[in-house]
């Protein structure tokens, strides 16, 4: 194609613009529709959306790539002012004009290739032979990795998750691209690592004048890094504009809903979940795809798709009634779910708990000297990064981890470590809900079967007034699911629905303590907000106590009364949530809080 040679040579200061881009399933529905956006040289644009919004498809199509079965239907792409075809012929540009950093560095790196070989592969594929191989050590240094030959000889499994992501970034930079598309580059990393990678990207942008498209589900992260934000919903960009303007005065009701769904540790608030669930590909309604969930929808919204309308220069919104979108007032954000301290009886007490993992010949201490109490109706949060031992503690209390010493007291009486040696009543009173809802339910059991099992095994059926089926119906109602869902299988449910069923199954045992192990981390923020609200209701209406395990400080600020911070299996700080978050004493807590992304922070920085 004409002009490609011009931009094929390594150079920075590239701009990118795409107009009217539609990508769809071959002979099927559209995945993204009529997407137009612009990226100026050395600018960072954040593309934000929930799962299924088409953000990854957009990112990949900018490299002229569609996943198998999908195709670009229409649209034009310009790189540095030169029009390029969005197909396989873009291969010559990939890597050197526009590069890609994939989502999961653990999977993106070939486990059989040493780091040096992996980087060299990219260079061989995309640079002229005459250019020779780049200085690998310079490249590694550029992303703050050890530049030693020893390091570049390592295999991916020998380096940490953050280092893998840096290697991915180094690979993307190896051919000096002008534009880099990053797809959720920090998802799955600890907050501290995430924060360092974000700083890294800002530095690289300044140093090499690279423009970036940052695809993510996390508004707080783009708030920190992006100059402009594009919000995607059902394959369309519903709102795009400068970061500060968009976050402080969102004009699309979806953007506003997202903002109100995000828990923030800087400013705890009652979350306001959006109603309904996101429409998936192939189910878009005729009009505005957000209309069924929109509080301000009119009949016009159901008839036609709103065009992009300018709010101010550079700030566009696809909404007929954007002028009536209420501001995200401090009023709506103020207040907290956390109730003042009450002296109720202690449900669970843990004294000097020590848990170990025994392997062949080696013993790893996962948690040591853990002591805490949970009172009736209280929510205690256990916070720590991956590997801090928080899940092991949860499993020990639930009776699933046998290598423990110390005492676990349920209402004053000691529990044996193994669940099967505990009495029925003891097992009934403690219930565990795990992280991944898809994994928590047996795929071959209907919702009804899944919920019925704990009732049959743990409850005294003579106390059920309406029998097992009546109890299942009332449990579904309690987690706000319709009764017809009872005969569905887990693969027919959305992530949020599945997690509600898992919670209903735990409630079926009529527990006093529910252990929630990262139960919202696999969910989209809007779904997460609804689940948190449900937990809060269960706590206040039924006096349920919660042990809430998470790495997300925003969640802690939203729901937890008290907080334990865990570092390498040891409690390093504890106290009332607001005082720990407001005035952390321990170094580790301070680092965690500083690293946690916050929408409020990013707005404060820009004003």
């Amino acid at each position: 194609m004409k002009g490609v040679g011009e931009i094929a040579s390594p150079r920075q200061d590239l701009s990118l613009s795409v107009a009217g881009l539609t990508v769809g399933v071959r002979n099927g529905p559209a995945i993204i529709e009529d997407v137009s956006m612009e990226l100026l040289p050395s600018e960072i644009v954040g593309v934000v959306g929930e799962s299924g919004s088409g953000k990854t498809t957009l990112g990949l199509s900018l490299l002229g790539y569609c996943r198998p079965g999908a195709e670009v239907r229409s649209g034009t792409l310009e790189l540095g002012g030169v029009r390029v075809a969005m197909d396989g012929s873009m291969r010559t540009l990939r890597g050197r004009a526009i590069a890609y950093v994939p989502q999961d560095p653990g999977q993106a790196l070939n486990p059989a290739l040493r780091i040096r070989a992996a980087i060299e592969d990219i260079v061989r594929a995309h640079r002229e032979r005459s250019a020779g191989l780049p200085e690998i050590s310079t490249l590694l240094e550029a992303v703050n990795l050890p530049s030693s030959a020893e390091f570049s000889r390592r295999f991916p499994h020998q380096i940490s998750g953050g280092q893998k992501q840096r290697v991915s970034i180094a690979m993307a930079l190896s051919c000096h691209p002008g534009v880099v598309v990053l797809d959720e580059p920090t998802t799955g990393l600890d907050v501290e690592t995430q924060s360092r990678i974000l700083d890294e990207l800002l530095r690289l942008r300044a140093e090499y004048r690279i423009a970036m498209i940052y695809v993510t589900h996390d508004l707080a992260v783009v708030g920190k890094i992006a100059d402009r934000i594009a919000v995607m919903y059902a394959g369309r960009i519903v709102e795009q504009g400068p970061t500060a303007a968009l976050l402080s005065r969102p004009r699309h009701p979806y953007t506003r809903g997202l903002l109100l769904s995000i828990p923030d540790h800087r400013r705890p608030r009652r979350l306001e979940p959006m109603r309904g669930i996101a429409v998936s590909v192939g189910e878009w309604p005729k009009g505005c795809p957000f209309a069924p969930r929109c509080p301000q929808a009119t009949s016009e919204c159901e008839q036609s798709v709103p065009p992009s309308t300018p709010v101010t220069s550079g700030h566009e919104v696809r909404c007929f009634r954007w002028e009536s979108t209420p501001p995200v007032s401090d009023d709506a954000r103020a207040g907290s779910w956390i109730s003042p301290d009450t002296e109720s009886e202690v449900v669970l007490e843990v004294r000097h708990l020590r848990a170990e993992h025994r392997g062949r010949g080696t013993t790893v201490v996962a948690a040591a000297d853990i002591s805490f109490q949970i009172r009736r109706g209280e929510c205690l949060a256990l916070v720590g990064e991956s590997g801090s031992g928080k899940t092991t503690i949860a499993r020990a209390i639930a009776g699933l981890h046998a290598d423990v010493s110390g005492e676990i007291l349920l209402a004053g009486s000691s529990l044996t470590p193994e669940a099967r040696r505990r009495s029925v009543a003891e097992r009934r009173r403690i219930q565990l809900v795990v992280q991944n809802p898809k994994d928590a339910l047996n795929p071959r059991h209907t919702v009804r079967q899944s919920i019925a099992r704990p009732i049959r095994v743990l409850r005294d059926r003579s106390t059920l007034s309406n029998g097992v089926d009546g109890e299942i119906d009332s449990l579904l109602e309690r987690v706000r699911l319709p009764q017809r869902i009872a005969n569905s299988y887990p693969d027919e449910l959305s992530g949020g629905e599945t997690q509600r069923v898992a919670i209903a199954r735990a409630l079926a045992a009529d527990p006093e303590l529910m252990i929630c192990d990262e139960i919202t981390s696999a969910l989209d923020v809007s779904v997460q907000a609804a689940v948190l609200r449900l937990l809060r209701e269960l706590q206040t209406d039924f006096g349920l106590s919660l042990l809430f395990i998470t790495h997300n400080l925003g969640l802690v600020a939203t729901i937890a009364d008290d907080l334990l911070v865990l570092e390498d299996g040891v409690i390093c700080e504890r106290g009332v949530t607001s005082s720990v978050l407001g005035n952390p004493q321990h170094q580790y807590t301070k680092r965690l809080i500083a690293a946690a992304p916050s929408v409020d922070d990013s707005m404060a920085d820009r004003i």
Partner: protein
Amino acid sequence: MSSATAETKVARPARPRRHRWEMLRAPEGVIGLVLLTFTVAVAVIGPIVAPHPLAQPVGPPGEPPGHGFPLGTDYLGRDVLSRVLYGGWPILWLSAVITLFTYVIGVLIGMVAALGRRLTDSVLMRFVDLLLAFPPLLLVLVLIASAGSSSTILIISIVLVLFPGLARIVRSATLEVSTAGYIEAAFARGERAPAVMWHEILPNIGPVILADLGVRFSFAIALVAGVNFLGLGESPPSANWALMVAENNVVITSNVWGVLAPAVMLMVLTVSINLLGDAYVRNRSKAR
């Protein structure tokens, strides 16, 4: 709470669940089912409709088809068609019983090894490895030679050959499933291992072990036939297809049907089962 209830107000078309019998729509499935029905019908109804007695010579030996014998006569002058009609049942019920026991034992040992302590696992799996180390037919022949030839011994020895492979498959499938959250949840509510195996694990490894059914069933047929062919199974005058292939070798030049007809029936039986197995596996991978 309107916000939360509304999660389900937005209409979402129910995804159709693939029907269990959809595999029968594929060509392999249809052909396999037709052939299997035919073979089973021959084996079950055959003895009733057979025109001549099983063991009595009714003509000269090795007569080609004709003269009221559609498939000719065998090496003793008995009607080949009648013996083919009689000879399916012994093969079929032996293979079916063997497959049944193979599944009961293989699934049980596989699941116990996967869920049990490390010692249990080691002991069971080394035993399985030991059995796997023998060439299959040799092990069967040695057992029959030392314990005598009877249906019981035949069944036991072939099950001993067939279950180890299945136990290994079941063990690895169980290990894969056993870390899932719902298994943990079951143990956390204090369910005993047998209940967990039956309620939680079996429904999930079912497809994996069913996919193996065709191969294992046809292997059972092959072993039953092999033992009979070698003369260590049923003793003449009773008829079964494998025995017929062996004994009519001597008249193969004068009446090829004495060998060909039972051999074709064996082949049709094995092929039909394998076709059904293929249809099942293909249907499952399409459903993913």
